[in-house]
Each structure stands twice: as structure tokens, then as C-alpha cells.
């Protein structure tokens, strides 16, 4: 048995029946990391000693927690007490948090074994994991290609079997798009479903915490652990958390699926469109009814997102001033010079670009024309979805217009990179849950994902739809393809 091939559910069965010890499982993953990390670079730091001793302790105490012994990678944007947390940036290269993020705390309590911190685009700014100060991440399906971003390390690690699952963050697509590029499952819950406490803030009205897993059942298991009200996050919902695993097996017969007509004129590559239309047929075969819907303000989504998100980024990144923590530039003679130098040297290009963009759209004289305008159009986008969900149960779309591009191919044109977020930003702006799952491959054997969007707090609906799709396509040829490493 190849331990690192097993899903969370399968590992739990092997561990609980005594076939595998938690230490064996952790060792298998640590060995796998040693074997492939040189090619992938999906971890910024590996906590080998801590992982081993944790697994051992859980074995000794015969711990029975819900994720006991399951090895996890944590995107390096989440505070982990005692473990370096860098945000993949020079600014926090040596930062050791004095506390755990709430999602991390819940995973620890559930017995998960933290293997290390996953690489990502610095500050979660990016869609290719090329913006990391710790090197680019390589897509396990084709090492010359990007894994997507910003949770590129998380998605690549899961696809390369370097961890059983990972926790990422999604602001405009940062869980879903890399999951799509890497052929794994990525879930963005409803804004407020999972506590953001301890997640290094990017855009506070958009950031969401979620799992990246090998399959849909695992995503349901992990969501049940991390979701729920947290007094330390005032935007977290009080709504009780369902046992998501129980919702997966329901049939899709009679379900109404929305297909937004605007989505077909957004620069879809022929290959993505073909795979997407095949996916629609899978749902129809299961007895679901596909309904044409209109989301008329779709075309404004990227502009709205790239006004609001940088505005919030500029505010959130204001705290990095090299005083209480983080990088401090050498050679400054005055306090103000210290700020200018520290922030110019500590931040990378994309961070600086977004900070200035955000500063501009919030500045006096421009606030109404940009930020306020964008928040109004955001409301129109949210209303489009509300109206659609009166007619349909869930909505489907591609994840990205193309499969994974080559490393270096898009890095010269920031705007081109932003435009590729067109499908993922829509539910982000409306605060809705969305899941990305494998739907097929391109001719060059690159994964292509499918996005399922649900109504607010409709994680059970989209997990059910995703699970049924996964089951129906379980025997497809492309399920047998393997990664390059």
C-alpha cells in the first residue's frame, strides 16, 4: 500500500483499525517530501521534528480525535505558534507568531499533524506562486508550469502527495484556481463560515479560509472541523455547522443547475470549453436540469475586485513598519526614512503595486469615483446571484479560462494576470461558497477544473453536487493519469 496515495478517509480507517500507526503515516509523508521537494518547492519550512513527536504522542495516547494523525500542510499565511510564518515575504522572513490561527488551533485539537508551511504568493498577491520570496512553485503535472496561486504550494503539495491535505486562503480565487491547475479539490466556504483569526489579512471583506484536498469527501471532513463561530472573529457566523459528510450521497435528480450565459464570452480556451460542456452533460446524465441564467454584471467583476481588494490590502499592509516585528532596513537615520526604506526593501513588486493602487482609489478626490462606485457595482453582482438562486440550486462554471501556463509566461503583464480571475472573483465578491474540482485534462495532460457556486451557507449543496460529479466520473480514463514526479 502506498501510504501517501490514501485519502483522509482511507487513512483514518487504516489508523483506527490498527493497520498503520500515525508515526508511520507521518514518516511516509516526510520521506515523500524529501524525495520531491527539490522539484516542486511547495514548502517554505518543514517541521520534521515537531511532526514526528506529535504523531508519536498521538499514537501513545491512542488519540481518537476526528483527524487524528492526518498530516497537513498549512499555507504560510496562517499564524502557527512557534513555527516561522513568513507570508512568503522578506518582510516576515524570520517572524515567529506567538499564537495559532483559529483554523490551525482547531486542526491541532482534531489531531492533525502539521508537516510544515506551504509556499504561496507573497501576501497572497498572485495567481501563479511566482511572487514568493522563497522561489516559485512547480506544478507536479508539468514542472515547467505554474501551480496557480496564491495557494500554489498548498495545491502542489496535495497533488504531489506531500501532505494528505492543506489549508489555504481564498480572496479572489486563491484556493480554487491552484486546485484547478493542480487537479485537486479546493473549497472556498461562504465568507464568515470559517474564522479568519490568525490569517494574515489580505482583503478583509473578501478573505476566506478553506481546505485543499485529494477528493470531495475529504474537503467535507476538514470543513466540519474548521468551520464555526469564533468570538475572536466578529464576522464569523453563529449558524451551526452541519455534518457535511452526511450531505454527500443525495442524488442530483431534479436539481436545477444554472449556466450563466455571460460566462461563454470571457476568453475561454477551446479546450476548457470542451471539458466544461462535457461536465454539463455529466450532470444532465444524473437527472439534473440545466437552466440558462443571466448574471448581467459579470463583465465588471474583475474591475470591481481589483479596486476593492487593493484598497483593503493597502490598509492591511500598513502595519508592516519594521517596529514591533518583521524586517528592518539598515542605514535609516530618521524614523520616516526607516519607514520608507523598510517598506521599499521588505515588500516585493506586486505588493507595492497593490498598495499604491489601493492608496489611489481610497484617496481624497478619487474615493467616490473608484472605491464607492466599485462597492455599488459589487452590490449589483451580489443581487445578480440572489436572483439566480431563486431559480436554480447551484451554478457551474469553468475555474480558469486556460489550463496552467508556463512559469514566466505572464509575469510581465500584471493586468493580463488579473483578467484570468474572471470566473473566481464573482462568488468572492458576493461572499458565496464555491468549490473547484477536477473535470478533465487538456491535450497536454494539464488538469482542467470545474467550479460549482452555491447560495450563502450552501456548502452542503455544492459538496453534494461535487461528490456526485466525482462519483459519476470515477471510472473515466483521465482519473488514471499520474503526475510528473
Amino acid at each position, binding site marked *: 500500500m502506498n501510504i501517501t496515495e490514501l485519502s483522509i478517509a482511507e487513512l483514518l480507517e487504516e489508523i483506527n483499525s490498527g493497520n498503520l500507526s500515525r508515526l508511520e503515516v507521518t514518516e511516509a509523508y516526510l520521506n515523500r517530501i524529501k524525495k520531491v521537494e527539490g522539484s516542486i518547492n511547495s514548502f517554505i519550512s518543514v517541521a520534521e521534528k515537531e511532526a514526528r513527536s506529535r504523531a508519536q504522542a498521538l499514537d501513545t495516547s491512542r488519540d481518537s480525535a476526528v483527524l487524528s494523525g492526518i498530516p497537513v500542510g498549512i499555507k504560510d499565511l496562517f499564524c502557527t*505558534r512557534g513555527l516561522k510564518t513568513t507570508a512568503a515575504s522578506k518582510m516576515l522572513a*524570520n*517572524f*515567529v507568531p*506567538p*499564537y495559532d490561527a483559529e483554523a490551525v488551533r482547531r486542526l491541532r485539537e482534531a489531531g492533525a499533524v502539521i508537516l510544515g508551511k506551504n509556499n504561496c504568493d507573497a501576501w497572497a498577491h498572485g495567481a501563479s506562486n511566482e511572487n514568493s520570496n522563497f522561489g516559485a512553485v512547480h506544478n507536479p503535472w508539468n514542472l515547467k508550469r505554474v501551480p496557480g496561486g496564491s495557494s500554489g504550494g498548498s495545491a502542489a503539495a496535495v497533488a504531489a502527495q506531500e501532505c494528505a491535505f492543506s489549508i489555504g486562503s481564498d480572496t479572489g480565487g486563491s484556493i480554487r484556481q491552484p486546485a484547478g491547475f493542480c487537479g485537486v479539490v479546493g473549497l472556498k466556504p461562504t*465568507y*464568515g463560515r470559517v474564522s479568519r483569526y490568525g490569517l494574515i489579512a489580505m482583503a478583509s*471583506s473578501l478573505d476566506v479560509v478553506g481546505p485543499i484536498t485529494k477528493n470531495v469527501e475529504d474537503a467535507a471532513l476538514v470543513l466540519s472541523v474548521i468551520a464555526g*463561530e*469564533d*468570538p*475572536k472573529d*466578529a*464576522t*464569523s*457566523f*453563529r*449558524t451551526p455547522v452541519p455534518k457535511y459528510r452526511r450531505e454527500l450521497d443525495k442524488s442530483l435528480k431534479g436539481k436545477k443547475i444554472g449556466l450563466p450565459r455571460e460566462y461563454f464570452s470571457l476568453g475561454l480556451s477551446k479546450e476548457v470549453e470542451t471539458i466544461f460542456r462535457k461536465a454539463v452533460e455529466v450532470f444532465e446524465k444524473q437527472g439534473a436540469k440545466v437552466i440558462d441564467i443571466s448574471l448581467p454584471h459579470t*463583465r*465588471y467583476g*474583475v*474591475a*470591481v475586485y*481589483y479596486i476593492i481588494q487593493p484598497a483593503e490590502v493597502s490598509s492591511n499592509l500598513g502595519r508592516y*513598519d519594521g*517596529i*514591533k*516585528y*518583521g524586517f*528592518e532596513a539598515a542605514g535609516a*537615520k*530618521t*524614523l520616516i*526614512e526607516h*519607514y*520608507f*526604506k523598510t*517598506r*521599499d526593501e521588505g515588500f516585493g513588486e506586486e505588493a*507595492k*503595486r497593490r*498598495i*499604491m*493602487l489601493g*492608496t*489611489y482609489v481610497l*484617496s481624497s478626490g478619487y474615493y467616490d469615483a*473608484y472605491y464607492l*462606485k466599485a*462597492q*455599488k*457595482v*459589487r*452590490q*449589483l453582482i451580489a443581487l445578480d446571484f440572489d436572483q439566480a438562486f431563486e431559480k436554480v440550486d447551484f451554478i457551474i462554471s469553468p475555474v480558469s479560462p486556460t489550463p496552467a501556463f508556463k512559469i514566466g509566461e505572464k509575469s510581465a503583464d*500584471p*493586468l493580463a494576470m*488579473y483578467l484570468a480571475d474572471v470566473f473566481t472573483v464573482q462568488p468572492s465578491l*458576493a461572499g458565496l461558497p464555491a468549490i473547484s474540482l477536477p473535470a478533465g485534462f487538456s491535450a497536454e495532460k494539464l488538469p482542467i477544473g470545474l467550479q460549482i457556486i452555491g447560495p450563502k451557507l450552501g456548502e452542503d449543496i455544492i459538496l453534494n453536487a461535487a461528490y456526485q460529479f466525482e462519483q459519476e466520473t470515477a471510472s473515466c480514463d483521465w482519473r488514471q493519469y499520474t503526475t510528473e514526479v
Partner: protein
Amino acid sequence: MKEKLTTEEIEYLAELSRLGLKADEIAKYRIEISKILNYFEELTALDTSQVKPYGGIAAANKTRADQILPPEASPSELLGNAPVTEDGFIKVKSVFQR
């Protein structure tokens, strides 16, 4: 093509953002940010005079617990991340110049 933003405007943005940009950085960001702002122009065509700004966040549950104690951390853990400390204090440059 004339860029939307002038060099002076980029320098002002950099100052507001406390970023000590060098000349070549200023030139580069001027082009890039101008291009992105041009893209935003398509929003101006939309009539939003009757629309309220997005209030989805305010509609979420207001969870608040004034009595929550933050997680415990030792002074050394907290001070350990500061670049410069002295006698248990974080050391900074003078705020006021004499």
C-alpha cells in the same frame, strides 16, 4: 500614449504609502498603474445612482465577546520578533527631531 498618472502623482502615492521608491521603480509603476486604472474606466458607464454599496458584511452575525482573553504569550515571545529591543522595551528612532 500619455499615461493616466504623472510622475508627481506616483511619487505622491508612494509617499502616502510610505514606500521609498527609486526612480526606475517610479517609472515602471507609473506605466503599470496607469494601464490598470484605464481598465477601470468601464465602470463609469454603469448607472449606480440608485444602488446602495455592498452591505453583505454588516448583514453577517455580529459576534462579540468583550470578556475574551487573548491567548497567553510570554514577553520574550512577543519581544522576540522586534528588530531592536533594550531592557524589555522596543527601541525606535526619535519621533521628534531636535
